[in-house]
C-alpha cells in the first residue's frame, strides 16, 4: 500500500487553510479532537494525528547544543522505532514515563545489588524524568523483585545463554491510552542465573530499556546499556545519556510515531539555525 505523508503546518482553528486540498477528512472531527495541538500529519488520506511541538527556548538550546547529532538521531530511531527510514512499524509510538518513577526493591534482591543500582541511576540527571527510591512499597510505582518463573519462554533466546539481556529478566508495565507508563514490575530469576555478576547488569539494562521501551542494538559500544555485550560500566555512557535526554526532551501530549519524530526533529533543527 502506498503511503502518502503530508505534513501540514496548521494554524490553530484555521481548518480551512490547508494547502493540500486532495486530502479529505472531517473538519469537525479535527476541530473537536485536536484544537490544542499545532502540528498535524495526515496518513493515507484519512488518518490524522496531531501534536504540540512547542518547546521552551532552554529546551531548544539544549537540543541544538547537545543532541543535534546525526549519529544520535539515527541511533534513536533505531532503538525506539526499530526503523531508520520510517517505512515500517508505523503503529509504533514512543513510550514515556509521565510521572516520577518511585522504585521499591523487594527484600529478595541482594542489598549490594540494590546499593549499586541506586548509585548508578541516582547520578542520572534528565529533564522531565525523575527516578527516586523508597523503602515503603506502598508509596512506590515501580517494583523490582525476584521470580522463579523461567523467562522468557522463547527457546531462541534461551539458546543464546544467560548473558543475553532478555534472558531470565523481564518487565511488565501499566500504561494509559496515551503511551505513558504509570506503574511497572521488573522481575529477575536470580536462582537460575549462574554468573551472579550478571544480576546487576541485567537489572540495569532492563530498567534502562523500560524507560523508553528501547531495544537492544548490535552497533552500540559495550559501555552502552543497550549493548548485547554490556560491560556493566559504572557510569552511564554518553551515548545512553544522549538517548535518554532526547527521549525526555519533552513529555509529548500525544505519542510520536517515527514520522512525527522526524517532523519534530526537523522543526527543532530549523530553530537551531536561527
Amino acid at each position, binding site marked *: 500500500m502506498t503511503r502518502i505523508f503530508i505534513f501540514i503546518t496548521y494554524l490553530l482553528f484555521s481548518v480551512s487553510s490547508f494547502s493540500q486540498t486532495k486530502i479529505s477528512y472531517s473538519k469537525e472531527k479535527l476541530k473537536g479532537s485536536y484544537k490544542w495541538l499545532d502540528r498535524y500529519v495526515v496518513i493515507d488520506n484519512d488518518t490524522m494525528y496531531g501534536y504540540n511541538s512547542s518547546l521552551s527556548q532552554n529546551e531548544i538550546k539544549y537540543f541544538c547544543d547537545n543532541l543535534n547529532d546525526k549519529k544520535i538521531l539515527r541511533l534513536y530511531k533505531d532503538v525506539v522505532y526499530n526503523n531508520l527510514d520510517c517505512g515500517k512499524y508505523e503503529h509504533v509510538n514512543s513510550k514515556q514515563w509521565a510521572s516520577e518513577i518511585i522504585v521499591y526493591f523487594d527484600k529478595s534482591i541482594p542489598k549490594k545489588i540494590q546499593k549499586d543500582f541506586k548509585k548508578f541511576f541516582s547520578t542520572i540527571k534528565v529533564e522531565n524524568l525523575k527516578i527516586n527510591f523508597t523503602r515503603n512499597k*506502598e508509596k512506590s510505582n515501580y517494583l523490582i523483585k525476584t521470580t522463579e518463573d523461567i523467562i522468557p519462554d522463547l527457546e531462541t533466546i534461551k539458546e543464546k545463554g544467560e548473558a543475553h539481556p532478555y534472558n531470565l529478566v523481564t518487565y511488565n508495565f501499566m500504561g494509559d491510552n496515551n503511551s505513558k507508563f504509570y506503574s511497572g514490575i521488573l522481575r529477575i530469576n536470580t536462582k537460575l542465573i549462574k554468573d551472579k555478576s550478571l544480576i546487576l547488569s541485567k537489572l540495569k539494562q532492563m530498567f534502562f530499556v523500560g524507560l523508553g521501551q528501547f531495544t537492544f542494538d548490535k552497533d552500540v559500544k559495550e559501555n552502552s546499556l543497550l549493548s548485547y555485550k554490556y560491560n556493566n560500566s559504572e557510569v552511564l555512557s554518553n551515548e545512553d545519556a544522549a538517548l535518554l535526554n532526547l527521549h525526555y526532551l519533552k513529555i509529548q501530549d500525544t505519542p510520536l510515531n517515527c514520522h512525527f519524530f522526524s517532523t519534530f526533529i526537523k522543526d527543532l533543527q530549523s530553530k537551531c539555525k536561527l
Partner: protein
Amino acid sequence: MQTLKNSLFYILLFLIYPIISSGQSKVKHIQQIFVPHSYYKEYYTKTDSLGYKIKDKDTLIHVSSFIKPKGVGVPYEFKDDTFLEVYKPIAFQSTEKKNSDSEPMKYWKEEIKIYFTPNISKRVKKEFLRFTKTIDKNVDSLKVRNVKNIENANYIIYTNNDFEYEENLKSMSSGGYYINWNRKNQIIKGHIKLNTKNLFSDLVQIQKAKELFILSLGWFKPSNTLDCTSYFSNCFSDKKVMSSLDWEILKYHYSYGICKGTKISQFEEQHKRGKKSMKNPHNKFVIYHHY
C-alpha cells in the same frame, strides 16, 4: 417533540405575547399559553382548546390555563458553546453505527453506596473516601457514602483476590469499572476491580480507583483534548486534581437544568430551543422532571 417525550421529560415553553393596545395611554399585557400537542393530549380535554398555531413544525395548542404535571420544574441551565464542545464528547458515547445518534447519557439518580472488600487496604479506602466526600459535597443531586454491609451497597470496590463480583471485569490486567443502568438510563449498580498483581501498591491503586470512579459517574468517555491532570482526560497523570473545568463538567452532568438520559440530538435540540427562548426576556424555559 416526540423524542423528548420519550425521554420522560417535558420542555414547556411559555410564550407570552405582550399585546399593546394602541391609542391608549395604559399598556395592557395579555398572557397567552400554548402547550405542545403531546402535552395537551395527556393533560387536557377537547373543550380546553382555544385554537392552535404551528411553530417550527410543532403544533402548539392555545389553552386558557396551564395544568402542571406531577414533577418538578427546573429553569433551563444555559452553558456557552465552548463548554458544551468539551462536555458533549465526554457525556455522550458514540454508537457503533456510523452517522447515527449517540448513546443516551447515563447518570446516578439514587445515592451511591460504596462497599469495599476487606482486601482493599485501609489507606486506599481512606484516600478514596476523602475524594468521594468532596464529590458528595460539591455536586448537587449526587450523593455518595460508604456502607459496611455489602447487601446495602450498589457499588462494590474489590480486587483480583476477591470473589468475582462482576464477570465483565474478569480479565482486567490493571483495573476497570463496570456499571449497569435501567431503561431510564439511570445507573443502578457499579463495580471497580483493582488487579493488585499489577497495581501492587496503595499509591497506584488509589490513582486508578479515583480515575475509574469519575468515569463511572456517567459512563464518561475520557477526552483526548484535555490536559492529563484532568480526571476527564484520556491520559495518566500522578498530579490529577478535580480542576474547575472538571467540577463544571460533573456539576453540569448532574444539573436538573438539562434533560437527563437524552441522546446528543435531543440534548442539542434542547439547547437550541433554550437559547432561542432566552432571547425574549418574557419567556421562561423550564425543564420538567417527572416524579
